[in-house]
């Protein structure tokens, strides 16, 4: 089993008010799956994704990654996992404004021991039909192009799992379809995809849909 969550609880405290966002989530994901976590706004789907992506820790419960207890790992180990095992695609793209398309893709290599070169980044951009845009700055790109750059960045270190948080949220339907096709192809190449979306059309690209409501999994 690649990912296994047991009774994950996540609580947030704002002032005196405590909110429980995840209320005992159990979830297993096998290597090579394309899982869509679907739910409405505030259902806890993004929180679950970030816990799975080692960007957040659960308040209670166990998260096992390839059978290893993530809760016992130190911050540097989690950084290392995020860098080499995971790739992230965000709704807001998060492209660094002062770096070119090519340099944005290369950012993860700064923190990696894998000898990924400029050539690898160029090859990846060409694969995503961005070969003519490598020297462009992010503000010169369309939304769809920005998200493809973000996908290239997520792929540069050859990750096993891609976490995509509403990756089509800011795109028109054509660009959204393109992005989903890319994710589908990546899954077909053997990568595990965990997609968070509220859109059933996008979720339909997945091989499995996990529905979440009020912090609880309805169907997995």
């Amino acid at each position: 089993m690649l990912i296994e969550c047991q009774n994950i609880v996540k609580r947030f405290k704002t002032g005196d008010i405590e909110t429980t966002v995840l209320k005992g989530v159990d979830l297993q994901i096998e290597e090579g799956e394309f899982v869509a976590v679907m739910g409405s706004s505030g259902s806890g789907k993004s929180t679950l994704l970030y816990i799975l992506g080692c960007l957040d820790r659960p308040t209670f419960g166990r998260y096992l990654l390839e059978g290893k207890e993530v809760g016992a790992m130190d911050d540097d180990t989690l950084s290392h996992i995020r860098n080499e095992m995971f790739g992230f695609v965000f709704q807001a793209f998060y492209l660094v404004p002062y770096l070119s398309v090519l340099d944005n893709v290369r950012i993860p290599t700064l923190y990696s021991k894998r000898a990924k070169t400029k050539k690898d980044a160029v090859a990846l951009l060409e694969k995503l039909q961005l070969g003519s845009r490598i020297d462009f700055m992010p503000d010169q790109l369309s939304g769809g192009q920005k998200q493809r750059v973000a996908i290239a960045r997520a792929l540069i270190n050859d990750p096993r799992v891609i976490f995509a948080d509403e990756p089509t949220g800011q795109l028109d339907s054509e660009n959204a379809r393109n992005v989903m096709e890319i994710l589908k192809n990546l899954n077909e190449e053997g990568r595990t995809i965990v997609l968070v979306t509220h859109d059933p059309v996008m979720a339909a690209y997945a091989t499995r849909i996990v529905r979440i409501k009020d912090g609880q999994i309805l169907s997995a």
Partner: protein
Amino acid sequence: MARFYLHDLIAFLLFYKGRSLFALLGIVLGIASLVFIVAAIEGSRLKADRIIGMLGSDTILIRSSFGSRISFRHIPMKLTMEHYRKIGTIEGVRSVDYFYVKKMIVARGGFSKHLMVEGFTPGTLEHFGYESEWGRFFQSKDFKNFAKVVVVGHDIVDEFFSGKNPIGKTLLIGKIPFRVIGVYKRKGKSPRGTSMDERIMMPVPTYRKFIQAEYGKLFAIVAKVSPQADYDRVVDDVKNILNRTLKPDDYFLITPEVIRKFLSMLSASLGIFLGIASLTALFVSGFVLSNIFLINNRIRAWEIGLRRALGATKRQILVRILLEASVIAIAGAFLGTLAGFASVKYILPLLQIPVVYPLESFFVAILFSMTVALVAAWSPAKEAAAMDPLEALRRRL
């Protein structure tokens, strides 16, 4: 990879150029004044060495005090021939000479100028290391016959003779014609920054007869101490002789030690003033830099979160921000040194201190600016490194 790392870092600083420039400016100001201090201190030392070199390290120069009148036209000369003779008898004094200086109107053709005219004994010319280039220096017959002859510097040749050989030609000094018999080799600028080639010298008897009839009074006495003698003891003996008939402020003694003391005092007071100014500037720049980096943390929190999400460790974020500060520090040290050298070029001559560009000040600058930048950036860097990646990502402005 190191190249890309540096490119990424510099691209960030250039993208937020307003803030980077502001942080840089404080460091540049602090470093510029620091470099200026180092140059001023070194220049003062050089000046002291030059004066001593000109005077001779075995020399004691005794000059009549200007008193309240700071003018070469009316110097109250309290030194006398009697002092001159007695100083000559001190044990350990190898030779003793004297000379006069007065500012006079010098004219030729339609051109005239106020210039220093000096009355020299044969020994004084030799003592101050003048060498003949054209013509000759004074001979004993010139001294005996009150010959109206002068030896001049190259500036005089340029100004009065259009740079042509002036031997045998005349100059009017206070309306009296004097024949030019020699031109001495160029001596360049004095430590005070004035030209040493704009001087007119004549034998002492001539000077007394035609320029200033002060037979018993002297402008300055120059004594040379023999190498075997105790220099300090000779200085004490000179003072004893002078103090028998003069008040301490009627004269002043110029010795290598006095020159060094005076110039080191000058550079020390300059150093204290500018030192406080530069340290204040560096302190303020550190404060500014720290606050700018804290502002950067707010604005780029999402970017720090992104880098953490993409695999950067806390330590890598900390190092990155300290390196950003270091780049500003190095640029500040470099530009500050250049600005310091520019101020050295234009300000030191006004202070009559020789212009020197101490290269070691660049390393002092690097050391200071790096210290300031690293101390200032430490807290913002720690704050950035400690950011929760997810919270930071959500703080996109």
